[in-house]
């Protein structure tokens, strides 16, 4: 196979776009893990559920509980509505799935997040049916030409929004009191509480923030695929893999791991095997776990981040 720079650049852009999605969801994992010490197995549903809510108000007609409704709203309004809704969702999730179990170790919380995941996936099926739904894109064209390159504007949007969010997160964690309190809670809850951090509230805010990261990833990725009840599951597993590849608990690790998995997977799917494309992330994961279990950025960074 001869080397085609244009095709490779296109693959790179698309890989970075997928990688950005993994990075955002991985950030959600890491923030919750750092704050409460558990992996949230409903993270994928933080992506899926808001996507369904969004299409309900983006499409001119959609079946809800089997009845066709016409609830179309302006795009900006829909995005705001979904974000506000997911703030409530994050608070509720914290209340139901985490808070009652907070003193019982990590396993019960993992099980209850699994319960939430089962609940939401099937609630989605009940409400919106099992047919995939197409989310309308913000862009009139599928691809734009930049010189010889054909690039999807949606990919560029994903990469751009992710970059802004990462910059925002850096600002939040380094420059604001809230961010510092979140970091303090992640490092040592008992000490954070001693110096006056309201740990319970910070944990709730972390769940909300993580739900919002999932929401934004869902809104960004849905126009590229379709909205289904399974859409979040594989994204979340790969994001989880990405966060371990990067070094679990490490914020830069989650970002780099996510981007790396997205790019390697896209190239692997093109050059090696499209049938096994979903296995690539996990092969990388197992390799990293065996050779460098602390991940690329290790635990040391996690303590600082």
């Amino acid at each position, binding site marked *: 196979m001869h080397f085609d720079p244009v095709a490779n650049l296109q693959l790179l852009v698309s890989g970075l776009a997928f990688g950005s999605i993994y990075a955002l969801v991985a950030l959600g994992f890491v923030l919750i893990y750092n704050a409460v010490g558990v992996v949230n197995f409903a993270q994928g549903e933080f992506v899926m559920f808001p996507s369904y809510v969004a299409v309900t108000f983006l499409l001119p007609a959609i079946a809800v509980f089997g009845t066709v409704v016409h609830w179309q709203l302006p795009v900006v309004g829909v995005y705001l509505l979904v974000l506000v809704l997911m703030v409530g969702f994050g608070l509720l999730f914290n209340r139901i799935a985490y808070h009652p*179990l907070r003193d019982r170790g*990590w396993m019960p919380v993992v*099980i209850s997040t699994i319960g939430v995941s089962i609940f939401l996936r099937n609630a989605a099926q009940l409400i919106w049916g099992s047919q995939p739904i197409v989310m309308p894109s913000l862009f009139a064209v599928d691809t734009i030409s930049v010189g010889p390159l054909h690039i999807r504007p949606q990919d560029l949007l994903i990469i751009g929004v992710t970059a802004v969010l990462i910059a925002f997160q850096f600002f939040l964690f380094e420059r604001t009191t809230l961010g510092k309190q979140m970091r303090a809670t992640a490092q040592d809850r008992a000490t954070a509480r001693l110096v006056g951090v309201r740990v319970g509230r910070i944990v709730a805010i972390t769940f909300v923030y993580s739900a919002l990261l999932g929401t934004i990833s869902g809104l960004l990725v849905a126009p590229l695929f379709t909205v289904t009840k399974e859409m979040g599951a594989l994204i979340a597993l790969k994001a989880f893999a990405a966060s371990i590849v990067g070094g679990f608990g490490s914020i830069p690790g989650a970002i780099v791991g996510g981007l790396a998995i997205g790019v390697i997977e896209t190239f692997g799917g093109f050059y090696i095997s499209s049938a096994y494309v979903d296995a690539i992330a996990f*092969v990388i994961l*197992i390799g990293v776990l065996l050779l460098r279990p602390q991940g690329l950025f290790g635990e040391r960074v996690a303590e600082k981040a």
Partner: protein
Amino acid sequence: MPKTNVLAGAALLVALALVPQFVHSDYLLTVIDTAGIYAIVVMGLGILLGFAGQLSLAQAAFLGIGAYTSGWLTTNLGWPVWPSMAAAMLMSALIGLGVGYPCLRLSGHYLALATIGFGIITQLVLINWKSVTNGSDGMTGIPAPQIGSFVFDSYGRYYYIVLVAVLACAYVAWRIKTTRVGRALEAIRENEIAARATGIDATRYKIIAFVLAGAYAGLAGSLLAHMTKFISPDSYSFDQSVVFLVMLIVGGSSSISGAILGAVLLWFLPEVLRPLKASYIMVYGAAVIAMIVFMPRGLVGLLESLRARFTRRPREAA
């Protein structure tokens, strides 16, 4: 007290043996047989997680490896069923060894994720290795086991194979729990460093746990294949592994009866909820959350505390 236990055990055994005499619906018998088979998988997971404290989310993959090994040997090589079942167990145990060994350095969430990765890769292989697995169409025509001319071809007859297998697996698990290996595993679960310091070869015992969990799931997979006579890759998903984990935790992770109880109860729960039609799995999810919140030590813990409450009262009065 032990005498009443023996009596209760014998009565339970007789009651269990009589089930197919009273249940005639084929559908209900399938559900019962499957519950027994899942109980075996969950017991295997119980050895790994409950006894040794190692979380695996690949039990469904081992179930699949057992099912496909057995299915392939009987349909492609024409092996009889019983040696195929043994081979399925061995195959899953060996792969358990292969997965367990490199995973020894991992624990907690890391181990969970490595096993998730293994499970997803296994399922992709089952879907894509068409020359052996027949891809997503699945494998058909898997024969039923027989002894002499007696063929276990109805769900009522198959029930007895499952019953014997469940009892045998429970016995083995109980022997493990109450002997040296079980105590070593428990020590590792509570504090691996301390266990090593007292001279326990943690590496060896953890591998034993992985191999046993693999063997249990392999046997269960084979039992499932010869019961349904048809297997396809979508039954061996990550979601299915999650279901097994939930069964174990809800039942009570470190007890054998908890594993069986959890598997049977959660397998029947959707059947009980079926009148709710489309919303039943949703309610199932909510029930899982409620159980984990309100029953900290699982069903077994709940039963124990109920028993304690009822037996304490007379004593207090006396």
